């Protein structure tokens, strides 16, 4: 076995592991969402399937699979099927460039716990996010339903608007670290040297934009039940609907991972140099990263069940007239400080 084959096998295993973990976590996020909602509303939440209801996601999936898979008569059929596929594909794509842990040495081989370290990493994320809206748009349009179309149009204009603020807050991070590679950005935040202490405003802008990009409440205008029935997925049923809902949870997991990597040091933690064994240090790092991710997921859910939904003009006002100017000012200030310190 030559080096290339070993490399390929390790990478394939890593792809499968991250794919599996992402799906598992997304499945259980549906359960956490209900439990957090129940906790915040002083209810019990799902408790019938298994102890504490932990088999609830399986029951949901079973239900989804056995529902009738209905395709509306006058829909664009191929595009109707393509929509949820694109949503799922783009949701899963970004997980490939997140550094899930530091370099570790196992059996005499060093490898990064990251599928691909591409040198335009952070731009790749922005790119995938910007094509992520096609799933919703195509699905909503192909349904041939006015409410679906409204949902699709809302989703796309919202995503375009908040992408700008998101990109501008990322530029400030890139200016600070001097690299577009996520691996370098995370490695520079060694110990407690996290970006959030230098970029608090950027972090807040990024967090709000991430909420909007995930179509999470209070920005879930695209599936606003009180106005649009179900929004872009009104006509969907069975596992196609499941794909759309599932993609949302995967998106949430991945954006929390990106927030943790960009602003909260990724796998870095305070006093990490006191752990001498690099393998143990790496494993603790991965655990710490997942801890941070779960904290942000809880924050997302907390926000969802606390804040009411924005009105559409408020959403546009917040995006264009507040977040973008703030992000531009943040970028200018970062540049000025970097120039001053040179």
């Amino acid at each position, binding site marked *: 076995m030559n080096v290339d084959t070993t490399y390929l096998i390790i990478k394939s295993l890593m792809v499968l592991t991250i794919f599996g973990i992402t799906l598992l976590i997304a499945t259980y996020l549906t359960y956490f969402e209900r439990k957090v909602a129940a906790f915040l509303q002083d209810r019990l939440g799902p408790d019938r399937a298994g102890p504490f209801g932990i088999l609830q996601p399986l029951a949901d999936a079973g239900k989804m699979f056995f529902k009738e898979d209905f395709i509306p008569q006058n829909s*664009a059929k191929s*595009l109707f099927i393509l929509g949820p596929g694109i949503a799922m594909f783009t949701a899963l794509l970004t997980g490939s460039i997140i550094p899930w842990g530091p370099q570790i040495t196992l059996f005499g081989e060093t490898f990064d716990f990251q599928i691909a370290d*591409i*040198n*335009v990493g952070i*731009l*790749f994320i*922005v*790119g995938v*996010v*910007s*094509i992520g*809206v*096609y799933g919703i*748009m*195509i699905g909503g*349009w192909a349904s041939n339903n006015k409410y679906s*179309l409204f949902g*699709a*149009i809302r989703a*796309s*204009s919202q*995503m*375009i608007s908040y*992408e700008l603020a998101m990109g501008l807050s990322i530029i400030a991070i890139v200016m600070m670290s001097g690299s*577009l590679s996520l691996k370098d950005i995370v490695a520079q935040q060694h110990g407690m040297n996290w970006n959030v202490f230098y970029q608090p405003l950027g972090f807040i802008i990024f967090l709000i934009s991430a909420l909007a990009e995930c179509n999470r409440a209070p920005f879930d205008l695209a599936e606003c039940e009180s106005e649009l029935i179900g929004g872009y997925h009104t006509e969907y049923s069975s596992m196609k609907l499941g794909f759309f809902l599932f993609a949302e949870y995967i998106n949430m997991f991945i954006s929390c991972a990106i927030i943790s990597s960009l602003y909260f040091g990724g796998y870095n933690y305070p006093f990490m140099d006191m752990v001498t064994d690099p393998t143990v240090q790496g494993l603790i790092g991965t655990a710490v990263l997942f801890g941070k991710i779960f904290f942000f997921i809880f924050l997302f859910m907390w926000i969802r069940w606390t804040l009411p939904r924005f009105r559409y003009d408020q959403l546009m006002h917040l995006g264009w007239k507040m977040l973008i100017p703030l992000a531009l000012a943040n970028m200018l200030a970062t540049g000025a400080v970097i120039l001053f310190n040179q």
Partner: protein
Amino acid sequence: MSPTIFLTLAIIAVVSAMFVVFAKNPVHSVLSLIVTFFSIAGLYLLMNAQFLFVVQIIVYAGAIMVLFLFVLMLLNLSADTEPQKSNRFRVIASASAGLLSLVFSAGMVIDATMGDRNVTNIQEIGLVKHLGKVLFTDYLVPFEISSILFLAGMVGAVLLGKRTPKESKS
């Protein structure tokens, strides 16, 4: 392996570009134009131009085509509501497209006759670091001129988007 990938991408690009012209439904043409942009982005990646690849996806496939799709979905065009263009319009459009292709092919011919340029470190030529350095030293003037063009475009968009006083009263 590289020629195979190149051929696949090139064939996808050409076929989907033809579909853009021949598709009856405007939404289908826009979707196939997105496929064209993706295959062109793949060609950039084959040439080690990773930055160009990502920018192509973010700007063309991600932003411009979303806006195209957005407008088409709102207008809901169909064959009978579409305004019929006059023949004069068609002649002008094909003439300008022909001129554009003439400029492109002239550029390619000049490029081919120039011979090998002294490009060092060809593996990393498309990376952000090198691109930025070249843009801010050798090509500073064209870069600034294009940024002025962008500024003019932005001012124009704001002006067009602004409501006229007559409209806002009604």
